């Protein structure tokens, strides 16, 4: 099937090398200096985006990114992401932290998808990460699917193969390092991606320039998406003490080290 509309839902998360510290503000918990922390596109959403672009090339489809986050941070992140693969963006200006409510986030994203010009649900594939590196519930995509009336959904996806008639097969991760293989008659469907099998594309400045022509206006007309968190209360958020008293073994012989490790394994 040609002409699939592949809509990727994604947000931003702090760069994983940053030290994260929770604080409690007037509206609930947040990250200390959250707006100052360098951000990246959520890694699983990133995988979903690359898989979307790869699929779009094969089926003459089009990739959209519906991104929810503070628009100033999104602009910074897009400077890099825009150079990866071609896409059109729709921006929802709202909080992107891990302490927001999944259902509210889903409602905002679903509304953003519905507003995409020329949306044809018979050709719609919703892609995203199977969970986020912030909230990590794995809930948002399912709920977006429900709000859009899509009841063929897959999570932990590493592969999709689309046939000429529009049907497709999917591999989803299940327990014990195995995959469940399923076939679906075709779009619409929701796919929550794990890592997939594609490497991160190298930066392509030409792709970046083409994308940014549309990203900047999209950022300027971002739809406000406040998330109130009604009914959700945090009793506490903290960083558990994880520092161990590391014993560093230096200048010991290979034999002594191996013996100690073997004894520990056997114990």
């Amino acid at each position, binding site marked *: 099937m040609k002409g699939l509309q592949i809509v990727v839902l994604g947000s931003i998360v*702090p760069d*994983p*090398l940053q*030290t994260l510290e929770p604080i409690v503000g007037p509206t609930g*918990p947040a990250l200390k200096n959250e707006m100052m922390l360098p951000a990246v596109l959520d*890694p699983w959403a990133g995988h979903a985006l690359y898989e979307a672009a790869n699929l779009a090339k094969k089926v003459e489809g089009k990739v959209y990114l519906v991104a929810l986050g503070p628009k100033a941070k999104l602009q910074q992140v897009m400077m890099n992401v825009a150079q990866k693969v071609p896409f059109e963006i729709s921006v929802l200006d709202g909080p992107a932290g891990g*302490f927001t409510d999944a*259902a509210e986030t889903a409602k905002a994203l679903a509304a953003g998808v519905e507003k995409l010009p020329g949306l044809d649900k018979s050709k719609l594939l919703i892609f995203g990460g199977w969970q986020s*590196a912030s909230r*990590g*519930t*794995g*809930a948002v995509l*399912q*709920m977006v*699917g429900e709000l859009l009336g899509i*009841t*063929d*959904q*897959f*999570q932990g996806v*590493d592969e999709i193969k689309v046939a000429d008639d529009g049907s497709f097969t999917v591999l*989803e*991760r299940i327990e*014990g*390092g*195995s*995959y*469940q*293989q*399923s076939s*679906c*008659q*075709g779009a619409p469907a929701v796919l929550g991606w*794990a*890592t997939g*099998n594609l*490497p991160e594309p190298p930066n392509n400045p030409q792709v970046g320039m083409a994308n940014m022509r549309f990203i900047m206006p999209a950022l300027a007309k971002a739809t406000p998406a406040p998330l109130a968190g009604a*009914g*959700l*209360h945090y009793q506490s*958020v903290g960083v*558990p003490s*994880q*520092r*161990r008293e*590391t014993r*560093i*073994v230096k*200048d010991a012989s*290979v*034999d002594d*080290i*191996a*013996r*100690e*490790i*073997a004894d*520990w*394994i056997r114990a």
Partner: protein
Amino acid sequence: MKVLFLAHTEEGGLLGKAALEALGAAKALGGELTIGLYGAEVQAGADSIAVCGAVKFYGVAGADFATARYGSDAAACEALAKAAGADLIVMPATARASRVAAGVAMRLGAAVDTRLTGLAVEGGKVVATRWFYRQRMVGKIERDVSPWLVTVDTGCFEPVSAPGAASVELLSPAVATRTVVTGIKSPAADAQTIRPEAKMLLVAGAGWGKSQAGGVKRLDEASQLILGLLSATQCSLGSSKSLVDQSGDGGALPFLTHMHQVGQTGSTPRHQKGLATCCHGEEPHVVGWRFIGERRAINLDASCGWAQGKADVLYVADAFAVVNKVVELLK
């Protein structure tokens, strides 16, 4: 408070370990307990928990519900939840249940929180504990919304065993799905290196694929040593993202896939012990070690991340030599 324990059955209609632990979480809350089971068969599973104290058993069974499909599982869960009319719905965080839990919550108008590691009543309110930001911080949540659907992680609650004879009221929801499960792809039993039940996790890091002394990569030797240690210990194999990425490009170690990845974009496995080899121990990887009890690492760098309080013991040594000797000793 009405509590619904909602779970799929497995082969033979029985309940898996994760489901029995989730029932333990549900039971511990007190309240009026109802059971909702779905799958190809449910009677055997219901009988295994017949005297758990539930006031009612509901089931959805049949060929349509034998395999894990979003459309059919969501229909089953929705029907069971509506029949039970519970304030709190507790499901196990299995792959099958996790695929539908949030979607079902949306259908019910329920709040949803997943992957709980704690669920208790405190001061008359239900309090849920879960991790945020890839296990970097832990939060305790209350909701004043009903119903509230939660999934609970395995390894955090006591499983229930309460055999007897259960009387199950079967429901027949309509199923609308265009998906067919065509099979399960697993590595051959002797090639399976991901072993969730193993006592130990062995993590192979990017150092195995780097040039060693003399500027030469020793990939065949690395493969042999890692697989040798796996065979000798029957441990589970994990990897850092960088080594998996090398393997995917046709380099490094061909038996590694993204499924082996531990850390920021990988898994967070639960094992009693973990041994990190040739791995840097930086935060994006170590977040995946949250649930590893005893941690040891082998690395040539005495100031790597493991030395900074992330491991119990760091052996500053050549992993090629050490692992070779360990395998000899364990044979």
